């Protein structure tokens, strides 16, 4: 099992109980999608997996190892193996596309080496290969913030690929993109998942995207899992149960 989440709870210092006992497992090579309303705890769950935040109780096992309360160097070693893509891309705006991508390798580079930006040919070659995977190698020397939203997200994906991740997390990666661009960005996740067998866990808002890309889906509601299964089984009844009676499905192609 690549990832096991056991009875995971997260209570923020503000007192908000954002995760209330979440259990699930992820096998290698899966494309797991997490759905749920705003505030249902999707980001909190993803951040607990790569330990951007520390869960309050429960366990997260990554490759069989308990990583729930790791600290320091050991935690960084785990983070190195888990890539993450964010809704807001989170690139360093004033730096070039290439240096943004190389940033993905920081975890395995020496401190001095990375500060002097004295990268070996191997690292540079890897960076170009990652850019090539997402089809924007020709933009390598542009400033990151001169690219369009879709392109910036592809740079962010390339950055996470530099980690050679065993697991790729994506927190609403297409929520700030238009429908057509969303689809093209999702296709890169699909490609990475299919071609390199990298496991992907991704939170999404549109059910049409979920049905198209997910091999399995989990639905969160108020910090609890209310649905787990094949995306094709999410019918009208389930939809209303996850998103509330008022909700209506919108189509995106």
């Amino acid at each position: 099992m690549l990832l096991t989440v056991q009875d995971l709870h997260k209570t923020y210092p503000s007192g908000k109980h954002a995760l209330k006992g979440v259990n699930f497992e992820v096998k290698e090579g899966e494309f797991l999608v997490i759905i749920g309303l705003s505030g249902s705890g999707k980001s909190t769950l993803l951040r607990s997996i790569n330990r951007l935040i520390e869960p309050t109780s429960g366990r997260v096992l990554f490759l069989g190892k308990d990583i729930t309360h790791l600290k320091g160097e050991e935690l960084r070693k785990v983070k190195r193996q888990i890539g993450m893509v964010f809704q807001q891309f989170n690139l360093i705006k004033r730096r070039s596309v290439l240096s943004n991508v190389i940033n993905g390798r920081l975890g395995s580079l020496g401190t001095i080496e990375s500060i002097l930006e004295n990268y070996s040919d191997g690292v540079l070659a890897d960076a170009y290969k990652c850019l090539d995977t997402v089809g924007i190698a020709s933009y390598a020397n542009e400033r990151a913030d001169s690219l369009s939203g879709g392109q910036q997200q592809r740079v962010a994906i390339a950055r996470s690929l530099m980690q050679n991740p065993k697991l790729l997390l994506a927190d609403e990666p297409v929520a700030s993109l238009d429908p057509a661009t969303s689809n093209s960005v999702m296709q890169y996740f699909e490609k990475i998942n299919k071609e390199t067998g990298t496991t992907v866990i991704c939170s999404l808002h549109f059910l049409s995207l979920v049905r198209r890309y997910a091999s399995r889906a989990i639905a969160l509601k108020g910090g609890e899992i209310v649905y787990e299964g094949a995306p094709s089984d999410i019918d009208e009844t389930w939809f209303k149960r996850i998103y509330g009676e008022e909700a209506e499905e919108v189509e995106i192609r």
Partner: protein
Amino acid sequence: MSDMIVPDKVPNEFVASTGMLERRLRFVKSALLDTFFVFYSVIVLQRAVYYRFILDLRDFPFSWSQIGMVLALSTVAGFLWTFSRTSLSCRLFGISKNDKITKWTVEIFAWFLFDITFIAGWIVTRISIISLFSPDGIQGAERLFSALFHPQFGIFDDALFAMIETIYIALVATLISIPLTLLVSFFTARNLMKDSKITFVIYYVLRILLNFIRSIEPLIWAVIFSVWVGIGPFAGMIALLVHTIASNAKLYSEAIESIEPGPVEAISATGANKVQIVWHAVVPQIVLPFLSFTIYRWDINVRMATIIGLVGGGGIGNLLMQYQGLARWREVGLIVIMIAFVVWVMDYLSARIRESIY
């Protein structure tokens, strides 16, 4: 719509809901403020109006026992006045009566305070229309102005060297300040230091220290250092350096505190260590503001360097003091013109450079 709270209902509910303690506290605050108002009015009336205008004394008599008596009487008056709920302080703290008399007393007393303050200010600063327009004075000023506008170029070489010294004092102080300020500013940025107790204590102590250093003017630092390292440009340079570090560290660390957290999070998610996170996610977001602050500070430092010379910090200010002491106004005129020119050029340059980097 009719269910909505009518505006004037709100204060009543508010008053009803504030506790007994809260109202006692307001009473005490208001009584103390009234005491001060009464005390202030009596003292100003006595000294400014009675001594000055009625008795026309030159030296005002002063005794602590008299002041103490006024204070005691004012305290009684202040408390009584607050007790009547008609005073200005009652209105300020929201515990006054709501009738016509109160409104009048408050308004009249506020005007009264304003007026006596103005009168006191007039006397304290010794405003004198007569001396402003006395023929003797005007003649002197004319002589000075004409000297300033007919500068004596004989000392041009000396003045030029002194000016160069001044510019270098400012430049060196600014340059040396950069690495030191950078180092300090990371330790005084809340978002980087709040994680552990030890770093937070460092943050706190440094902040207090910097505030203290900043609150002392560069002119005073120059006095201190001209005793410490001897009169001359070195003293001026260190004085500027110290003040520059303290002021810019505050600006720098505010820039660090306002960076976007997203990129920092993204870099830390790659497994980068703390130093790498700062270098690759924090630094790129702050170089431009840092550069801009530093150039602006160079501009300020040139201005200050001219002043610092007046108290032994070297450079053009030093020369200005010498010729002013000798009453050689035409030489002073040259120096003043040179200072104005350099300050204007610096101002223009720093504005242009700062514009072009954004």
